[in-house]
């Protein structure tokens, strides 16, 4: 058992465990905390896949941006419907658990079946160096057109979301 394998198993445990906690809990703040742990584990898995650029940008964007957005959303849409004013009541409702478990298991078994039939021959040796300069150069040469397009898309989405979220009288 190499240290690489051990750290991979630990990161998989963190990621899948907190994803399951996120699925199981009914308190939405606990789910946000579990999502934070999931994102940390995912960043570690990106590091193990030799994608350090992706790990750092994933940490910055998800932990610094999306999670804060979700927390703002939770606070802005907090509904104190249960009546007791003394405690923070962030417990949400659920539908029945039978159908979601069945559908999720069916998709999981199908994916495992398809991946087990795959033929992964001819894999090459991965190069363990940093991919930062490679990503920078190829984003500005070979992938310059999608890079600009994604910038315009980001601008449109930000302007559109501020327009949607404003008060319409």
């Amino acid at each position: 058992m190499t240290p690489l394998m051990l750290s991979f198993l630990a990161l998989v445990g963190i990621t899948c465990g907190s994803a399951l906690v996120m699925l199981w809990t009914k308190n939405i703040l606990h789910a946000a905390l579990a999502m934070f742990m999931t994102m940390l584990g995912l960043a570690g898995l990106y590091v193990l896949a030799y994608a350090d650029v992706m790990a750092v940008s994933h940490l910055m964007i998800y932990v610094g941006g999306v999670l804060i957005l979700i927390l703002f959303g939770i606070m802005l849409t907090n509904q104190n419907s249960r009546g007791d004013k003394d405690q923070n009541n962030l417990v949400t409702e659920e539908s029945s658990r039978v159908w979601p478990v069945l559908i999720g298991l069916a998709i999981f078994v199908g994916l495992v079946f398809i991946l087990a039939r795959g033929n992964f021959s001819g894999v090459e040796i991965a190069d363990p160096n940093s991919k930062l300069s490679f990503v920078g150069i190829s984003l500005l040469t070979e992938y310059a057109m999608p890079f600009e397009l994604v910038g315009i898309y980001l601008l449109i989405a930000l302007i559109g979301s501020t327009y949607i979220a404003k008060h319409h009288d």
Partner: protein
Amino acid sequence: MLILKRNAIFVLMGIELMLNAANLNLIAFSRQDTTNQGLLLGIFVLVVGVCEMAVALALVIQAYRQFQHIDLGRFKSRN
């Protein structure tokens, strides 16, 4: 998570989780690829996911202003 939860923000977190799972697949299979196409596609997927999250949370907040709740089982159509 998409089907189980009835809070709209929970559903959004589930969508985000599935997007990240697909992205992890891209990155993991690009590890054995010398041209690293999966890594670059993963970066673009990250940006698109952030855009989706911003717009969806704006929609959730606007729905909360309209209906005073975001319980997906209680939205009714008007006809």
